[in-house]
């Protein structure tokens, strides 16, 4: 059985090895971009069924973002929505025979987590300026500076290990059961895998949102209004 930590190299372009995960990732990106482009060409004030379905997805996303952050969803919709949709499609791409989900590879998850890490910095600086962002490391008092720096690294690390572990273990278990038992036996496990994929995509997006919100709120000079500041947030997750 192949090690889940290795990746299959399909071909090489110069010194760059193109693995199966990269090809799948680009295929998913192409599908998402072309799909989004094609579906939003003809938008109308009186929605067709297709447009209504799309609007429902965006509205659900907005509701989730608002409930998690207590803020307006507009600045985060693009990043969080793309993150969620990409991870969801990537997790479910294991349903296509012969395709391993790219999120079952360590590199893809690490790249996604690095994206979240940089977006936390970006949104934090945008909310409070460089000074406010740096000052947020000294909250609640300067003794916490090393711990806060450590926390901002470890939570990103645990995020990508979580995604990798969940998706990879699903693929791995299905592989083992299929090699032991036979054709139809892994189907319940694959159904469970669908649920895991959905939950993990959701959790990745929610955690990214929570981290961004905590950076924004820590860095902001003063909260714009009282009930956002008073709303309970999960800062120490």
């Amino acid at each position, binding site marked *: 059985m192949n090690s*889940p*930590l290795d990746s299959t190299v399909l071909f090489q372009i110069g010194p760059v090895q193109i693995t199966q995960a990269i090809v799948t990732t680009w295929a998913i990106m192409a599908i998402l971009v072309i799909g989004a482009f094609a579906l939003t060409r003809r938008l109308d004030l009186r929605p067709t069924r297709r447009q209504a379905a799309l609007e429902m997805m965006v509205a659900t996303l907005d509701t989730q973002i608002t409930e998690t952050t207590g803020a307006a969803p507009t600045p985060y919709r693009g990043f969080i929505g793309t993150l969620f949709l990409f991870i969801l499609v990537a997790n479910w791409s294991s349903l296509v025979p012969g395709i391993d989900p790219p999120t079952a590879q360590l590199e893809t998850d690490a790249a996604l987590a690095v994206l979240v890490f940089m977006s936390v910095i970006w949104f934090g600086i945008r909310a409070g300026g460089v000074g406010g962002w740096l000052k947020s490391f000294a909250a609640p008092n300067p003794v916490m500076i090393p711990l806060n720096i450590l926390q901002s690294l470890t939570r990103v690390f645990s995020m990508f290990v*979580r995604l990798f*572990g969940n998706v990879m273990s699903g693929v791995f278990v299905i592989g083992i059961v299929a090699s032991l038992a036979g054709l139809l036996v892994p189907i319940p496990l694959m159904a469970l895998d669908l649920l895991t994929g959905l939950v993990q995509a959701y959790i990745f997006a*929610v955690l990214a949102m929570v981290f961004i919100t905590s950076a924004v709120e820590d860095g902001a000079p003063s909260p714009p209004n009282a009930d956002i500041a008073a709303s309970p947030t999960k800062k120490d*997750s």
Partner: protein
Amino acid sequence: MDYAPLASIFCAAFAVAFGAIGPALAEGRAVAAAMDAIARQPDAANTISRTLFVGLAMIETTAIYCLVIALLLLFANPLLA
């Protein structure tokens, strides 16, 4: 006889087995508490289950860490290289 492969396989099995106990108990407690909360306040079911899912993912991470350690022992063992 070289005991390193044998020991790694045993340790991998023990890591997963014992690493699963804690998260299993913890997730049981978390779900029970969430059930209790939903029974008391059915209106807040959405918020509770969202928080529950995030919390379960956090708890599950410890088990996943054990799994990763086991896989490292089995497939990327520095002692066996």
